[in-house]
């Protein structure tokens, strides 16, 4: 059996999730042995139009990028959204909270009308084309990336947690961030990261997006216990989970 052909593409993002692939360090040698990487602009000069698995990093923010991701979709058997910009829009969606013309004026001033500076509402990849799998996080976790790719190569459906970050945070025996008067998104955000932020004594800011059915009642209980409201919680969602 020939090795699956994999191509990695980037759109509006910081390219930090591609970097996490490089950051699996010595195991990258095994990875490039198990698959045939046919396009990866950040790391290689080769280009290809034929691939089985397309990995998409970044949000879709311009008409030409929408067109490009649609073409990639028609060529790929499996399409994976890589990282928060691709899976939920991430920080790029904060732009959607403002009037687009005002945003452009804010950044480019009197030059805002120049055609090459055009931008549209930020969208996650699944809001433009069908996405088969999502690798969450800002940035993604190298261990999770390896596990999901391995499962796909073995023909298994990759496991993605659908329980909140609190579960993993408790496993790491952290003191709850609410005890420090912080508003932490752990109760409603999808786990799988291993709770590195609360472990470093910083609140969860929600980079992996909501669990499928967030337990709003439980979240409300937590908020009431600390004299806070659900609106306080929603305010904190702006960073990574704007509409």
């Amino acid at each position, binding site marked *: 059996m020939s090795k699956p052909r994999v191509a990695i593409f980037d759109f509006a993002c*910081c390219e930090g999730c591609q970097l996490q692939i490089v950051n699996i360090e010595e195991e990258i040698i095994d990875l490039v042995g198990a698959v045939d990487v046919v396009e990866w*602009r950040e790391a290689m000069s080769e280009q290809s139009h034929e691939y089985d698995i397309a990995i998409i990093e970044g949000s879709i923010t311009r008409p030409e990028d929408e067109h490009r991701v649609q073409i990639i979709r028609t060529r790929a058997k499996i399409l994976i959204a890589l990282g928060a910009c691709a899976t939920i829009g991430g920080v790029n969606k904060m*732009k959607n909270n403002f009037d687009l013309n005002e945003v452009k004026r804010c950044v480019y001033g009197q030059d805002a009308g120049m055609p090459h500076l055009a931008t549209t509402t930020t969208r996650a990849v699944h809001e433009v084309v069908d996405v088969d799998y999502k690798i969450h996080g800002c940035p993604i976790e190298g261990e999770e990336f390896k596990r999901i790719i391995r499962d796909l190569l073995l023909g298994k459906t990759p496991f993605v947690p659908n329980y909140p970050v609190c579960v993993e945070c408790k496993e790491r025996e952290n003191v709850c961030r609410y005890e420090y008067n912080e508003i932490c998104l752990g109760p409603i955000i999808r786990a799988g990261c291993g709770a590195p932020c609360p472990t470093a004594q*910083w609140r969860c800011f929600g980079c992996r997006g909501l669990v499928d059915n967030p337990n709003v009642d439980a979240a409300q209980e937590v908020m009431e216990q600390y004299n806070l409201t659900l609106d306080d919680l929603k305010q904190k969602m702006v960073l990574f989970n704007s509409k």
Partner: protein
Amino acid sequence: MSKNININVHHVTRIEGHGNIVVNVTDGTIEKCQWQVPEAPRFFEAMVRGRRYDDIQTIVSRICGICSISHSLVATRAVEDALKLEVSEQTDRVRHLLHFSELLQSHVLHVGYLVAPDLFGEKSVVPLIPKATDAVKTIIKAHRVANQMSAILGGRITHPVTLRPGGMTRLPTEEQLRAIKSELEAIVPDLVTICEVVLSVADQLPNFTRETEYVSLTQTHPRYMESLNAYSFYHGDITSTDCNGDGPVPPSRWERVANEYVSPQSTAKWTKWHRDSYAACALARFNNQAEKISPLGKKVAGMFGLEKGCCNPYMNSVAQLAECAHVVETSLEFIDTLLSKGIEPETVNVTPRAGRGHAAIEAPRGILFHSYEFDKNGECVWGNCCIPTNQNHANIQHDFEKLVPEFMDEGEDALRQKMEMLVRSYDPCVSCSTHYLDIEFIK
């Protein structure tokens, strides 16, 4: 000899972000020669408005995955400048170490994974794995050690979560510092090996020079004037090779250095100071501070014949190798200082206040500026930022304009290769440069 050349590299590979090279030569006449930046703008500067002072570094870290630590650090320090917060010497030294880990990681990535394939005549590092397995593994090891250092100090490898205005959320333990120390000591011979591997193919670096202005920080912090850290990546004021005795410029006045303007061939703004363009990169730091680099850094520079005043942009990769040695030696000095004093717990108390603050830092690929203004509740009302790659775009264009006539007789393929290598030599972070431009907030 070819009289007609048509180069159209749509998205240069092995760089961070999207850039194009377009050259048209007809009957020996250069009709077009452009470095274009079509990266999708992300409008961070607009998005930080209304966010709290302690969310800023989390947001702007996402400008760039490769220099996320530099962005987080400079943003945190600009916020501290606005809120009039002082940090302890201990925090300052821990933050330096976090920064050194990124400089090492990024330089190894650039020279080892992105530049080396050009020197070996390959399209990526992948074909080098079977051909030069040991060398590739040595490069990966140095990269891993740098990343492990980031993970300990920053809470994870990319987009650190331990920085907060006024201090750190979590300090490393003495045991962790000792572990970092032994890993760093162990990779010193590996760095020498990497330098020897690059030296074996250094004749592939094009012989091209163009005199230009080199801009970087210069150390002014009294604590570090006599230490290895006199070669500054973090504190200090802004200087350049064109300053000719004029004193350095404080970070609060960085806008007078950058003089940003919009070019129709770029979604990222361009900059100029004393002349049409300037360079901000490892070579700029070296040209301004060469005499202060660490002993091993000097030795590495000497291996390649790199001297102060070098105007060959391709030598930036060599300056990065010298800096790799320097940051390892300086990190060891910093760890010893921290261990000799012992790690003391700190508490951070911040009271929001209205104000505007500025900071400058040397990102791996050159000097980086951030400024923010907050209202009395600590909500951001204005931000402005200027990224090293912005500051290099005009210089790349001017290099192209000298390079094309000099090398077009070598033919299209050789010229295209030299132009791609030139772009790569600046270690551009194009998505960065397009993410944070001039910001003016009018209520």
